[in-house]
């Protein structure tokens, strides 16, 4: 049974079918598909920010000179541009996933499903709250 499912099965005796190939560019022609591909690509930029953070921690552990060199590297126009693009994608990533969260979370309270807006809202409120804590930490020092 398991082996049989590896391939798509159709009727044994069949006329000549027309089976078009899916184009490599299937995602270009429709906006929802393009949006999906952009959302998938955004994970690369999320990973990039993780790398930047790791480099920052490494520089911090190596002392003030290494950290100054890291800050200088961050000021490189190419890195600034890359980080701006990455920021756009990370925000896109967050917003698209927040908006999709209610699809995956069917939470029921007192026999009724929690409205989508509550789940999306909770995500945005948590995002804002954590951002405020980060801002407070930065301003305080």
């Amino acid at each position, binding site marked *: 049974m*398991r082996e049989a*499912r*590896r*391939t*798509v*099965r*159709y*009727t044994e005796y*069949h*006329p*000549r*079918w*027309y*089976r078009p190939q*899916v184009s490599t560019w*299937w*995602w270009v022609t*429709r906006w*929802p*598909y393009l949006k*999906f591909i952009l959302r*998938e690509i955004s994970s690369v930029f999320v990973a990039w920010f993780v790398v930047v953070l790791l480099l920052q921690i490494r520089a911090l552990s190596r002392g003030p000179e290494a950290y100054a060199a890291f800050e200088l590297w961050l000021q490189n126009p190419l890195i600034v541009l890359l980080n701006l693009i990455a920021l756009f994608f990370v925000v896109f990533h967050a917003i698209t996933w927040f908006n*999709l969260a*209610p*699809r*995956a*979370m*069917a939470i*029921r309270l007192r*026999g009724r499903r929690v409205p989508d807006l509550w789940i999306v809202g909770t995500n945005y409120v948590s995002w804002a709250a954590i951002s405020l804590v980060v801002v407070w930490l930065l301003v305080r020092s």
Partner: protein
Amino acid sequence: MAESITLEVFRYSPERDADPSFQRYEVPLRKDWVVLDALNYIKDNLDGSLTFRWSCRMGVCGSCGMLVNGEPKLTCATFLSTYARETRPVRVQPLRYFPVIRDLVVEITDFMIKLKSVRPWLIRETEKPTSEGEYLQTPEQLDRYKQFSMCINCMLCYAACPVYGLDPVFIGPAAIALAQRYNIDSRDEGAHERMDVLAQHEGMWACTFVGECTKVCPKHVDPAGAIQQYKLTAAIERFKSFLMPWALK
């Protein structure tokens, strides 16, 4: 409003044509006509060779699904007047990602096999005798799965799913939604059996959450939601079995 509208219909004959082509037909534009009415008008009055599937004309049987201007639609629920203002003809094509047998008729055995593989029926570990009566259910318990039970197997979600197009072994939106429909039914005890099928590569994890299946569903079943909820349950189960192996049955 113009008195007629042009349809551009996909034609393919396995006996005559090496490649498909499009044929244009001029049909009366009536306010209460849907695309299926136009196809029937063509079949009755203009070209009897045009082949397509249909049955109920009221959005229940799920057999008249086609692409209208590239969008998966039930042609019995898609009004011609929606397209009256457009200058280009209304393009009618067979459902995407399925092999075409003739004109607008697609081969659906693949879907039928997949549907059966998820065992979309009530599974009981032991059936109670009929003398003990029905399996009772409260309105709340019904409400949990009702949305997923509205599926009419029209396969519009498959035609909207690029994952199915690129990886045809994917079990697909409707079949997984129906598996979930039985999993969360209070009378069912077959979730473990279904998990064996759906935890495989071509099961729920093949879904990358494009979300188009939910948008095209004429019955508002939300297959994308069903699949993500299934993934969440599977992940929690896995986590539990990892943390508390003794709790497994």
